[in-house]
């Protein structure tokens, strides 16, 4: 598998778009389930009520990867998510998540060679303001 070729072919273009309506009760439930105690994340009556910073990590697009993306799920595993908070998400917002492959790279570790696929979701609100960027790393072991 030529990682440079994969990177050239698959990165940088949007392959999925999904829309999410933000509801007050969902924000509270999520925050409380995470053990959050700060009122602006848990109390819908708080004047600054908003989603907690990691809220967008809960969303999935319609596709996890582009159609025909060459990945062997049997030798792959989840490398975790990174959430970059950009602006508040509040009840009543409509958030659109656009997904693309942000990066593909190789590294070597104790267990051998690995290919990292960085799936990026960029979330914008109804005013087209960027509110969050979520990077999900998928790791595939290489022979």
């Amino acid at each position, binding site marked *: 598998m030529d990682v440079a070729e994969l990177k050239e072919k698959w990165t940088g273009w949007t392959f999925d778009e999904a829309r999410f309506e933000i509801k007050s009760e969902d924000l509270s439930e999520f925050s409380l389930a995470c053990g959050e105690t700060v009122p602006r994340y848990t109390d819908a009556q708080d004047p600054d009520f908003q989603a907690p910073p990691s809220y967008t990590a809960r969303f999935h697009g319609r596709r996890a990867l582009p159609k025909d993306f060459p990945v062997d799920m049997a030798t792959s595993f989840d490398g975790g998510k990174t959430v970059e908070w950009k602006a508040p998400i509040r009840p009543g917002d409509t958030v659109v998540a656009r997904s693309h492959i942000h990066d593909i*790279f*190789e*590294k*070597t*570790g*104790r*267990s*051998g*060679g690995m290919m*990292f696929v960085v799936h990026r979701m960029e979330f914008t609100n109804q005013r087209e303001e960027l509110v969050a960027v979520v990077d999900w790393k998928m790791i595939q072991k290489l022979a």
Partner: protein
Amino acid sequence: MILDLHSHSIVSDDGRAKVENYCQWIRRKELPLDGFVLTEHRLFDVESDYRRLEDEFGFLILKASEVETDYGHVLVFGVNDDLLAALDFARVDLSLAGVLEESRRCGAVAVPCHPGRTRVGMCAHVESRGQVEGVRIVETLNGGSRGNENASALALAQRNDYHRTGGSDSHIVSHIGRCATRFETAIAGMGELMTELEAGRCEAVALENGQWTSQN
């Protein structure tokens, strides 16, 4: 002077530590450390400027790289434009011989790190494929090592009379300074660091109960 010669910040794909947080941690925990070198994975961080943090905290903060070769990972100190042009740092299949040669030619210093580690350290590769000419310094104390990996590294260094360094290989804040390198003289910058490494006026040390312990 004691410097942690192997650390990673959020600039590395797997680093979780901000450099400012390293500084705050060292100060808060009163670690007996004079500074550290950021050795980011498969790249040289041209952009970051840590002089403000150096001034604020009084630590020496230098930048280097950790590249990947056919004999395992290698720290490269003194990365410059010539070396960046000569080597594709992003590759995982550089040759150790090539990294050593190009580093020498461009005025940098290459130090194979965690040599005792499976697959990404040079010990096993030396056993299976033989020595590589040009190695003079190896990291014999790595804060991320397991089991007898550091002992294997030390044995390799002793057999070949290599100079020895130490570094934490920290990726998170609380791991900075677990291992380090003690120098005989004060070091103000990368040039002096390379001079002392090449001269072997250094030793690998580990922090145990607040005290530095030599590996010897």
